[in-house]
């Protein structure tokens, strides 16, 4: 059945409790997806002198793996202020890419391939952890509850059509795009057509999991000049099947609901946060308070832009600025004019 969660701390003051909120939400959805659990977190803005630093997490590596990056840049060791953390079979390290080096260059140099070495996440602010097992086990391995940052998405998996292992777990980092990750609940029924087309254009797929194609699709649209919110809106036309998916990026939190609303999704927005989850129980357990939770309408693509909060580095400390943080309404294509969206007055799926 899978469960997805998303959380954006608008205040920027929550610090480490973003991790605690996200873990609590995942635990509440553990029954939905007993197979795997994972979280993607967008951390705070890096300091000005660390703008160049990529944080990279890899799996199925060996002692020689990082030597393959020679010439592409430098691994930054802890003595020089970098991160070096091994747990759960993954390694997270800091890398300073040489000028002109792209993410694709790096993945190629590492020898990333299906069934072999895999880059689990890459970005200036993104970290992504996932594994087979429960949210509690994820916490035991990675201490998610101590993580801080403005934005996170998470996933509990019930495998329906592909194997249960680390690679097939979610969230999925969008290969080739720093600081972009997705979580999906549902079934993309034109997966094979989309995959065939993408493979013909040279894309590597790391799994047989249809959810992976969502990030591949978004990357393709971004490369064609669409913005992320526009790419999300495009997906309402180009993906078939049932899909609620969330997108975490350094720009903000995206929420897409397929045109039939086949899968459940509940959203709550207050002055302090935006929280979204497959089941309301996840919201209520993690976030006390008297707020209303509503369903985003079917056929809606909503993007909560962190930069619409003016003083992003400090978080939105000004109450007026917090109230002004509205989702960017994304035009939905013709034929999806959903009357209930207007009636419910929920997050805009239409301009």
């Amino acid at each position, binding site marked *: 059945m899978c469960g997805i969660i998303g959380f954006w701390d608008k205040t920027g003051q929550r610090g480490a409790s973003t991790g605690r909120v996200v873990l609590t939400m995942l635990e509440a959805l553990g029954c939905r997806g007993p197979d795997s659990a994972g979280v993607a977190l967008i951390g705070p803005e890096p300091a000005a002198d660390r703008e160049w630093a990529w944080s990279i997490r890899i799996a199925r590596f060996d002692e020689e793996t990082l030597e393959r990056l020679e010439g592409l840049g430098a691994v930054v060791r802890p003595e020089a202020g970098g991160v070096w953390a091994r747990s759960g079979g993954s390694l997270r390290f800091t890398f300073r890419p040489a000028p002109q080096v792209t993410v694709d260059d790096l993945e190629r140099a590492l020898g990333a391939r299906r069934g072999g070495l895999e880059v689990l996440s890459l970005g200036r602010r993104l970290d992504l952890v996932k594994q087979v097992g429960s949210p509690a086990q994820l916490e035991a391995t990675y201490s998610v509850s101590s993580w801080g940052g403005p934005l996170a998405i998470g996933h509990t998996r019930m495998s329906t059509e592909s194997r249960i292992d680390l690679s097939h777990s979610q969230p999925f980092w969008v290969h080739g795009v720093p600081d972009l990750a997705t979580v999906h609940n549902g079934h993309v029924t034109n997966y094979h057509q989309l995959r065939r087309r993408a493979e013909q254009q040279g894309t590597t797929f790391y799994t047989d999991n249809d959810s992976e194609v969502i990030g591949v699709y978004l990357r393709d649209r971004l490369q064609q000049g669409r913005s992320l919110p526009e790419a999300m809106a495009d997906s309402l036309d180009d993906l078939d099947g049932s899909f609620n998916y969330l997108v975490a990026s350094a720009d903000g939190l995206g929420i897409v609901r397929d045109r039939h*609303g086949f899968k459940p999704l*509940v959203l709550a927005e207050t002055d302090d946060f935006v929280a979204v989850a497959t*089941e309301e129980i996840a919201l*209520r357990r993690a976030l006390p308070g008297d707020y209303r939770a509503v*369903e985003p309408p*079917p056929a809606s693509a909503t993007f909560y832009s962190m930069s619409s909060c003016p003083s992003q580095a400090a978080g939105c400390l000004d109450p007026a600025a917090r109230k002004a943080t509205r989702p960017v309404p994304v035009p939905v294509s013709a034929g999806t004019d*959903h*009357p209930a969206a207007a*009636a*419910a007055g929920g997050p805009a799926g239409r301009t």
Partner: protein
Amino acid sequence: MNEQPVVLDCGDLTSRAINRAVRAAIAGGATRIQLRNPAGRHNLGVALPAGIELMIEGSVGYYVAGLNDGASVTVHGGAGWGAAESMHDGTVVIHGDVGNAVAASIRAGTVVVYGNASTRAGIAMKGGILLVTGSVGPMAGFMMQKGVMIVCGDAADGVADSLYAGTVFLGGRHGELGADAVFEDLTASDQELIAATLEQWQVARPATGFRKLVAGRRLWNFQQSERHLWKSAL
């Protein structure tokens, strides 16, 4: 005169523990029970018998009042999927929005949603009445076998798809109609039923009145000569 309700705080209890506490209260002679702080839990108040009134203060998860066996259940908050699903008889009132498949497969009784309903509202109803004061999402009334759905607001695409003898009364706009859905004139008895239901639940009649959707009956039996109809329906 109504007795004071027995108040149960859901606290950190599981749904099972809460439901058992409700049963214990009933066994102890209570007929009115109030649950506080449900915090989105699933399966609350399932299969309660006639003569029992359950009030839930807050939002609930899936299957609230599922398999209702005659009780009167009220939720002051929203509900998730399958509210009142497979109800045998009784009354379920939700003061909030509901998720997919509200009143799925109910046999009799009344479900009232003072809010909006999501996808597949009233799916496979076998009797009873579903009243939604707001709007309904896609595929409302899908495969209704019997029973009546009254929607004061709008219906999204696929309303009244593949009906048997169910009836949908629609007050607002609709998207694409469901397979084999046709409009029909309301009878005097339809008007009386609607008026009585709206009055009972204190719901204002929409200004434009209601339209009636029933099955065109072209999908009830398969005829080789009409197989093209099935191609578009499926």
